[in-house]
């Protein structure tokens, strides 16, 4: 099943800076084609995690694999990464800087103009990197990740330093790349960004994984219903065939349900009644990323 194909597998990764634990026992899995968000406040270990995954830092313990292989320079070539503020040779033109990227990735210079156009820097291709504004530098960083058309993009705070228009553009670019089939792993502390772009998310705080899963289940502002009935097994039976349920999860004595778009709790209640089931309890929870996030981070 293509859904199950993992491009990244992280097992019990830990890293400390002297006495400070940057990440501890982090385990995550990213499937092919996913847009995976790593969400957390500043200092939660996002950049440390991505730095280890891209080979800049060594972990203290734990392991990870890309494409099921041991990480190496060769696997890094299949990944387009941008960690923190992108660094380029300040005295060289954008074009020349991207040529170095292409030479490292051994992929030829053909897609450089296209990549520069994608981030709207084509007109500045002859300018020196040092003459760029912060937002432009960030965009060139994203352009560099696209050189050689890698299978995976690793982006650390990709909209950092951009103005609202730039943020929207970068977001659009990420969505386009995802639509083209790329796997994207993105760190961010901006809730709305993850909510709009990602379909899976891991939430970090102080280097500890608080929660991980489907963004729709975990985060999206959709109605989450908790329902109960006297006969739990009947409840499960009936709800299994319900056409307007997006996701069901068993919880204690009841079910947690996410409705498909356009359906309301009344519809569910009516459906249950028609099938001969009387719901004893319906609790509607409006869960947004914000509440979920704050709730998790407070714990």
């Amino acid at each position, binding site marked *: 099943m293509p859904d199950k194909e993992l491009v990244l597998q992280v097992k019990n990764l830990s890293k400390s800076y002297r006495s400070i634990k940057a990440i501890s026992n982090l385990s995550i899995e990213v499937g092919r084609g996913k847009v995976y968000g790593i969400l957390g406040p500043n200092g939660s270990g996002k950049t440390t995690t991505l*730095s280890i995954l891209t080979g800049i830092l*060594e972990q203290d313990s734990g392991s990870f694999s890309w494409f099921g292989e041991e990480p190496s320079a*060769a696997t890094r070539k299949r*990944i387009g990464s941008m*960690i923190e503020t992108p*660094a380029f040779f300040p005295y060289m033109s954008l074009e*020349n800087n991207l040529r170095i990227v292409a*030479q490292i990735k051994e992929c030829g210079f053909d897609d450089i103009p296209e990549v520069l156009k994608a981030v709207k820097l084509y007109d500045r291709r002859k300018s020196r990197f040092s003459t760029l504004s912060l937002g432009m530098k960030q965009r060139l960083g994203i352009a560099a990740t696209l050189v050689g058309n890698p299978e995976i993009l690793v982006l650390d705070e990709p909209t950092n330093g951009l103005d609202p228009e730039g943020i929207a553009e970068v977001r659009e670019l990420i969505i386009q790349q995802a639509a083209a089939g790329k796997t994207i792993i993105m760190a961010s502390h901006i809730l709305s960004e993850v909510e709009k772009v990602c379909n899976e998310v891991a939430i970090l705080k102080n280097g500890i994984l608080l929660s991980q899963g489907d963004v729709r289940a975990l985060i999206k502002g959709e109605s989450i219903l908790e329902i109960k009935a006297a006969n739990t097994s009947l409840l499960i039976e009936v709800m299994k065939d319900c056409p307007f349920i997006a996701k069901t999860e068993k919880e204690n004595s009841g079910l947690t349900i996410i409705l498909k778009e356009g359906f309301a709790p009344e519809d569910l209640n009516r459906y249950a009644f028609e099938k001969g089931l009387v719901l004893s309890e319906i609790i509607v929870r409006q869960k947004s990323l914000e509440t979920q996030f704050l709730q998790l981070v407070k714990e």
Partner: protein
Amino acid sequence: MIKLLKIELRKTLNYIPFRILIILHFVLFIFGIFFIPRVNFNFPFVTILPLYQFPHVWNFTTWISSFYNISLILLVIMLTCNEFNNKTFKQQLIFGLSRRDLLVQKIILLLLLSLYVIILVGIASITSGLIYSYKITFSLIFDRSWILANLFIQIFTYLCFGLLFSLIFRNMIVSGIVFLAYRVIIEPIIRVNMPESFRPYFPSKFVTKLTPSPDILSMIQSNMQSNGPNGANKPDAAAALFPQGLPMWENLILTFILITVLLSLSMWIFRKRAFN
């Protein structure tokens, strides 16, 4: 390897201070060889012409070139520390180079600079020799050209020092000062306080000895002998003033050991260092 060479060339040749310094090095070297000695050497009975003739010209040009080594070492320090400042070492790792690749890139740079110097010295020596020598034979021309190979090793060693210092300190000014302090103050002081027999075993001694300086005194003496009757009293004055040190093969072996140590330490730093 070719890939790393291409990347290093693109990085280096596009760096304007590099171009300026290399041009400056070139101009000053030519100036140093062909103009400065003519100004200073105006003594009676003494001619510096033999310095420009085969085979002495090889010693002379390599000796002159050694005064300019420091500028190339500082250039290496500058280029390496820039990569730390601009965080481009880290960025190249992210793009897919290995830590070993980063070191190999820099070694390529050192080899290219050493190659540049021996080409420059080679051309200068042959040109000058052909112009000024009275007698030109094939063996006379190439008799001492082995010195170019030694020069290559010597410059490469010094540049390795520069590389290691910049990897340790990451800062252009600190690395430069520490290097100069080591070369000019620290090592000489330690050396002077050592028994005579240990002195040839210091890096700047055995590396410097790879390219013997022109035997100016004995050349002058032989000149005086032929020009005047009173010059022939002290035939081994030169040998007394410039002790021979170790045999050449020992210098070479010590230098190769030194290069291995310098590069191993550099590799160790590249492997251990967190590039964040």
